[in-house]
Structures are given as C-alpha cells and as structure tokens.
C-alpha cells in the first residue's frame, strides 16, 4: 500500500492505522481467553456442591462461611428440604452434603457416598426425647405429640419417627429448624421433641429456663450424621477435589456441621 497516495487512499490507509491497535488488543484477548479456556478444560469447572443440613445458622451465612473455606467448590446452601429437592431436580449438582437419612432416599439413588461425617468416631448419634415439666412415660409414647425437624416431608418423617420409636402412627409435629423444636415445647404444641443427645446440654438447656427432661429412647434410636455423596458420573478429579476440600475443614466449621471429622466410607 502506498503511503503517499493522495485522497481516498490516504483516507483508507488512515482508517486502517486507526484500527490496528484494537485488532492487536483483540488478538491478545483471544490468546488469553484461549489459554484460560484451555486451562479450564484441563482442570474442569468447580464441582457444584449443594448443602442441606438443618441448623440454626441461616443458609446464606453458612454458604458464605463454607464458600470462603472451600474456594475450589461452588457451594449453595439450602434451608429447607423442599428447596433442596427442587434444586437437585432442576439443576443437579456434582455432589450433595446432607444428613445420611436424606442421602438414603430413593430419589437420591444416583448419588454415591464418598465421605461420612463422624462424631467421636461414630457415624451416627443417639437421639433422645426432651420433655418439659415431667419425664416421658414410655407407655404413653403413642399418645404424645412428638416434635421433629422435618428433613423429608410429612410422610417421610412420619415413617421415620414410627421406626425410631417403634410405634404405629405417631403424632408428629414437624418443624423446619432445630431452634423451632424448643419453641414447640415452650408454646406446648408438642409434648416431647426428638433431638440429638449431644444437643441437650449444649443447646436446649442453655437457651431455656424451662424444666427440661432428657428421656432415652428404648432400643437406642440413632440418626445418621451428614455425608457427602457424588453423582455417579462425576469425574475422579472432581471427587478428589471434593474429598480433599471437605476433609480439610477446620474444627469450628465441622462443629457447625455437627461432626468432628470426615472419613471415606
């Protein structure tokens, strides 16, 4: 191209020169994008983990805490089992962190356990009934209104409590959060609440001035601790990231998840 050409050519040349810088920038962006894309393909996207655990900590707070501690994962925390069920169906995650009874539901059969939470070396914790003003008479169990945290819906919880207490057709009062169980006793909407034994002193006694009674359940009812389960088609790389990240959670965060360690089942 002749630089000294008159009129329109100069005009044309001038246009080309003006556009040279953006083209170079575009080329650089393409190069960087290509590099990043290549790197993403090599490493895969962050594994998506859905968490549903009944807790007093609000879901967005737990999500923020977990996400800060697990930057290699993409974490979403749900505060209600129905929201969780819906989200798993609509946009299946790579993995879920849920109480063991939830992971065992038929609808989650495509998830395979890769980590089990433990507390003092056990994968389950004892359940007790807590009553106010007087201990529970075991002979009256069938007549009692039993408060439980609803992790599986009315039908699921009805069946679970029937099995745990070994009675037919229990009168259950399902609630969404652990703190709600105490409210049930306070306003006398339940005669007894079913809670993990470890929470009696650490939570219920501390929060309430009611005269509370601890009633063991005959036959030793227990509840499975949280587990991490992955979708069967998830890659080994993603599984490794999930196991490593969850196992490195510190004491404080594990306590909030009601475990003290994570082991490979």
């Amino acid at each position, binding site marked *: 191209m002749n630089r000294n050409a008159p009129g329109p050519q100069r005009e044309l040349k001038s246009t080309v020169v003006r556009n040279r810088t953006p083209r170079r920038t575009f080329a650089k962006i393409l190069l960087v994008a290509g590099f990043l894309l290549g790197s993403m393909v090599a490493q895969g996207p962050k594994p998506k983990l859905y968490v549903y655990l009944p807790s007093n*900590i*609000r879901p967005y707070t737990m999500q923020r805490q977990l996400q800060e501690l697990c930057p290699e994962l993409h974490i979403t925390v749900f505060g209600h089992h*129905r929201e969780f069920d819906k989200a798993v169906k609509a946009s299946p995650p790579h993995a879920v962190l849920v109480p063991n009874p939830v992971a065992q539901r038929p609808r989650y059969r495509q998830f395979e356990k890769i980590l089990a939470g433990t507390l003092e070396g056990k994968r389950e914790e004892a359940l007790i009934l807590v009553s106010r003003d007087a201990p529970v008479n075991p002979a009256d169990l069938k007549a009692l209104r039993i408060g439980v945290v609803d992790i599986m819906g*009315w039908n699921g919880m009805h069946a679970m409590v029937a099995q745990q207490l070994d009675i037919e057709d229990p009168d259950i009062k*399902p609630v969404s959060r652990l*703190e709600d169980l105490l*409210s049930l006793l*306070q*306003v006398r*909407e339940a005669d007894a609440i079913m809670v993990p034994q470890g929470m009696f002193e650490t939570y219920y006694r501390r929060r309430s001035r009611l005269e509370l009674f601890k009633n063991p359940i005959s036959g030793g009812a227990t509840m499975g601790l949280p587990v991490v389960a992955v979708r069967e088609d998830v890659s080994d790389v993603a599984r490794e990231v999930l196991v490593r990240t969850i196992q490195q959670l510190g004491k404080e965060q594990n306590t909030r998840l009601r475990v003290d360690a994570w082991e490979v089942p």
Partner: protein
Amino acid sequence: MVSAIVKSILLTALVTVFLPTAYTGQTDAGKLLVMRHASNNFDAAFDGLIGGLEDLVEVYDFRVDSGTTDAAVANQIDAKQPDMIVLMENLSVMKYIKYQESQPEGTIFPPAVILVTLYVEQLMPSMKNVMGISYEISGINSLGSLRYLVTSPVKRVGVVYSPYLEPFFLDQKRECASEEFELVGIRLERENLEPRAIKRALRQLLRKEKVDALWVLNDNKALTEKNITRGWYEVLRSCKKPILVGAENLLELGHLGVFPNHYTLGELAASLVHETYKNKWQLPEKKLRRPITVRRILNMKLAKPAKLKIRPAALLEMDIIVE
C-alpha cells in the same frame, strides 16, 4: 371500547371467582378448597401449603376480592363439596363467616383452618367447625430470641397495649412466666389512644417500672401513623433498652423484629390437613395453633447508637441484618 373493557373485566372476574385452579392430588383422598385474597400477598404461605400437602388431596385455589359476592362463595362451596377449607387472610374469613351465617340452622360445615389472619382467636368463636393458626408470634418465642441476642439481662419486659388486646396480653404474660420473663403491661384507655398517652405509658415503663426491654405488639389501634410519629417514635428513638417489635412496618422503632415465616405457616396448615384427614375429616381437639418458625431481622442502624451488646453467635441466626 368501554363495553370491551367491561366484558374483559367480567370475564376475568368469572375466571377468578368461578373457575378456581385445581392442583394435582389424589382425588380419592379428598378435596381441599383454599379461599384466599386475589392479591398475591401471601403466595409463600400458599406454596408452603401445597408443598406440605404432598399430593394428599386435590386442591382448588379460589381467589376472592371485595367484589366477590356471597352467592359466588356459596356456589363455589356447593359445587366443589370440599372435605376441608383453608381460609387465608381476613377478607376470606369475613366472606366465610357471612356464608356460614347465611346457611340454615343445623348445616354441617366442612372443617376449616384459618391462617395469615390477625388475632384469629377473636374471630373463631363466631364460626363453626374451624381451627386457626395465630399470626402473632408468641412472646415466649420472640423474647427468647431477644434474650439470646443481647448480653444484658432480659427479664422484666414492658408492653403498652390497647384494651382489645388485653386477652392476648394476659395469655402471653402467663405463658412467658415459664421462661422467667415478667411482662409488665400498661393498658391504654380506649379514649386515650393518642400520642400523649402512649408517651406517658412508655416513660412509666422505662423510668418507674425499670423494665429491661420493651415489646411493641402488632396493635393496629395504638399504632396509627400519628401515634407512631408523635408517640412511640419520640420515646423509643432515644431508648437504650432493647426493643422487640412484632410487625415488619415497625422495624424503624425497634432493634429486633420477629415475624411469622409465611412459607412455614402454609406448611403448618398442611400438617393440620394431614391430621384432619387421618382423623376422618374431624378437626383435632386443640383448635388454636401457634406459628413456630420465625424470621428475625436485626436493625443495627438503631442497635449501634443504643450501644446494645450483641452476641456474635446470635448474628448467625438472623435472617436479615439491616446495617
């Protein structure tokens, strides 16, 4: 043009009133008619109800508004022959009361449950075969949240209330005693529902009664706009004691707001449908239920200037923190 608009409005009204939406369910189990306001104010409660029912019954969503006639309500109930009715919000309850009153003596009404309606216990005596879920959160529940939130002692709690809330206040006083809360109430005289009386009552509680905290009830009569700005606000803005409020629009007056969670109110109604179904469509013995799950909002904009000492762990349990 006008006639087209009128036709369109009529058609919409017909669709709204006479053709309720049916939700899937086991038709052999039963039919549930949900009467609720045509506005979408309480959709979360409706969603909680549908979710909690787990397809137990076939649900008909019957939207009403101020224009819904008594005949339309009667037609709907006659046509659907529901096994149970859920009434959401005051308007639906008022329409249903009129429906019951219009029926001949000895009519057997299907069991009904009322929710998201203020002071439902005051409406229930005039109705037949109903039970209700209170919209007001129990003091024992709300004050428990306040006691855990602040490090200062919360034992004596001051309450200013209108005469119509006296039965509610006395119930709360009795119930709260079991958690060692002592409610100290000042009842406003009917003729004194004005800012000056409210200010005097609040100052008496803070200075003479030396309460540890104040609880502002969801009291329509004492909480008119004039009373809020010239009465409540004038005393509470400089109050250094923790203030609990029972309605979302009162959050500017208090440090902690504890309100019903609408989704779980719907779920609670669903569990009452389960219970009633199990009991061959007979309502359970206990006719008034309390909301259990709450939403907590901490107003740090007021808590900070009041120099309230907040427990860090309690912050994790707040649904919203207003900074």
